[in-house]
């Protein structure tokens, strides 16, 4: 058979190897998060005070990079996109969860991934944040019977934007790129206006 990705889904290696890869991929993830300065809560929350919009820049550059990569690889038949895991849609809890997450982000100063990065670089508040996540997840699990209805509401299949709106995939890709580049330009202007350096 042709060498098609995702390799794990095509049985090219087993679970043990995939766990090793998880570790290596994680190293790359943590490395670039810290490179971007996201091991620091002050840098992260500067996004939400419009002083330093690195969060927006890094996140959307990553999204655009991976999105273009996936699109091109799938277009050339080297990646079977239908085998890449897509999180199913649960519209209401995802919207509400997003708001809560945003609040937690600016109150606590981190998100789960960056809190681990912060802990790794000696941030005590990062460690406390991690403990908070454990406590919160445990509480959520214990309260699950009460929350279950809400948790499962608005259930739907995993949907992509092109699929949901009936647009060609490439058109959405191009639109996202334009939006991101435009956003980066705007971010530069906002930063000039509200500049306050953080470390």
């Amino acid at each position, binding site marked *: 058979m042709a060498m098609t990705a995702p390799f794990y889904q095509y049985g090219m290696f087993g679970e043990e190897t995939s766990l090793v890869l998880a570790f290596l991929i994680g190293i790359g993830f943590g490395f670039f998060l810290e490179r971007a300065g996201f091991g620091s809560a002050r840098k992260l929350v500067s996004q939400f005070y419009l002083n330093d919009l690195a969060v927006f820049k890094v996140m959307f550059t990553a999204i655009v990079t991976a999105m273009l990569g996936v*699109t091109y690889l799938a277009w050339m038949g080297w990646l079977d996109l239908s085998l890449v895991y897509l*999180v199913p849609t649960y519209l209401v809890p995802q919207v509400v969860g997003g708001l809560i997450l945003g609040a937690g982000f600016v109150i606590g100063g981190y998100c789960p991934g960056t809190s681990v990065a912060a802990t790794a670089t000696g941030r005590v508040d990062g460690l406390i944040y991690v403990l908070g996540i454990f406590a919160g997840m445990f509480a959520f699990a214990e309260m699950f019977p009460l929350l279950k209805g809400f948790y499962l509401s608005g259930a739907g299949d995993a949907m992509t934007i092109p699929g949901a709106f009936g647009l060609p995939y490439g058109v959405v890709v191009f639109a996202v790129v334009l939006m991101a580049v435009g956003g980066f330009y705007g971010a530069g202007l906002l930063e000039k206006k509200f500049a306050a350096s953080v470390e």
Partner: protein
Amino acid sequence: MRGWISRLTLNQKLAVAAVALGAVALFAAPYPGSKVTLDARELALVVGTEADHVEAPELAAWIIESRADYRLVDLRTEGEFGRYHIPTAVNVPVNVLTDAGLGRQEKIILYSEGGIHSAQAWMLLRAQGYRSVYMLKGGLEEWKDQVLFPAVADNPTATERARDDRRRAVAAYFGGQFRSAAAVAAGASAMPGMALPQTADMPKVAAPPSPSGARPAGPKKKKDGC
């Protein structure tokens, strides 16, 4: 002309590259649809080794052991499936097989009445990139002959008796019954008066969940999330 590119800052160069790549991506068609590519030689080799055949008694043993690591697929029509099917099988008529979304990491065992549809279905799934696809050798005919209605010897030797006892037990488990070997040899038609077990009489075994477009399920059913 080239001058203006070199006058851009790094960030601006990145932006130009991104927009250019995005513009080309306008024409992207990332989903392959129903076209497949085959490596004929590799498939021919696989066919030659017969490594992907499963014998009926083997399958019977797996079912009795309640193994959960395979997906047994009945390729016949709904009506035929309803009248009788091998326990733990799911019904995916062959004409909708390629859209069924069977898990790629599961061991898929195909069967049909004889072997023609299962062989053709095997080819279709292999063409789509499935790796663990197997065929029940001889199909339902062989299942009836070897598992449901096995021929047991009339004057068994010691070894034959042990083997026949096993076969009798297996046949009873699946609601079938044994036949006399002599009668079979004498040319009596395969299973005279032997009714196929009714669906209600079949052993209560847990069927694997139906493959309606579900994500590939590994042996563990852990949450596959973020």
